[in-house]
């Protein structure tokens, strides 16, 4: 029974966090919030990139070289083709080959 309570608490708390802003600004979205909606996405996605790369240890093993090469592949392809599907799949395959075969 404890397990059910724990899962319910995780679910409901997450739900409240996700819905809270929509309830607080139910009537009309203030201009400031609209502004944040314009500027936060690039900032937050930048944060998520750093979050994913935070565990690279540049001092040992491969100095983060596979990660850096694969990130470069994704950026280069995205700039060139502007197609996320191509960039993401190519970058991932490149990374898998690098860590399984090369390094």
């Amino acid at each position, binding site marked *: 029974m404890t397990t059910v309570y724990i899962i319910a608490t995780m679910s409901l708390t997450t739900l409240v966090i996700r819905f809270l802003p929509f309830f607080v600004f139910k009537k009309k*979205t203030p201009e400031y919030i609209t502004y944040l909606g314009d500027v936060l996405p690039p900032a*937050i996605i930048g944060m998520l990139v750093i979050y994913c790369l935070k565990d690279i240890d540049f001092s040992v093993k491969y100095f983060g070289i596979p990660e850096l090469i694969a990130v470069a592949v994704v950026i280069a392809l995205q700039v060139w083709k502007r197609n996320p599907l191509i960039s993401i799949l190519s970058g991932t395959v490149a990374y*898998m080959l690098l860590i399984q075969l090369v390094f």
Partner: protein
Amino acid sequence: MKNKTIRQAFITSIPVLAGYIFLGIGFGILLRKAGYGVLWAASMSIVIYGGSMQYVGVGLIASGASVINTLITTVMVNGRHLFYSISVMNKYKDAGKYKPYMIFALTDETYSILSDGKVPDGVEPDRYRFYVSLFNHSYWIAGGIIGNIIGNFLPFSSAGVEFSMTALFVASFTEQWLTNKNHFPAVTGLLSTIICLLVFGTEFFLIPALLLMTLVLTVFRKRGVEKI
């Protein structure tokens, strides 16, 4: 029109497919090791739907954590979602019947795909966003179930597949960089995060980073609105 919207949503969701399946498998395996079967795995993936939260959740369940402890941990791990919701409020405002589910299903990955507000040509925007959210959720549920049932017996080496999530964020970041003329928000996000990572360490730096970038973007609002 209807089928095109669903087809486009599926194509958009493909980059998330591999990542969610394999991260989901990781979760399913972990939960099995803690002694919980496939129904638990599926239920958690359906009602919680948060990657890091469910990994942490296995620990909470295994240790029989109290409701208060679970609540505090959830706020710490998932507090960042408050900022995701704030920044999609305007884009989701006309979503009608799709809206509650779309708010519920706004994970990091779905956010990074939908947060720029752009949709492919010729699709119904809100139906499209709804289906992207739904496809991503279904991959996550499928991964949890597969992992819980087959465990470690994968027929091929999947080492490195988790990089697809990193690649997704890098591609979204690059695309928004190319679209926006004003790079102040993107640079603010990167620098705030790096500073908070150095100051607070790798465990709990996301909330400080979000607060810092919001503060900087608020104080320098003039810089933020220039030629977006």
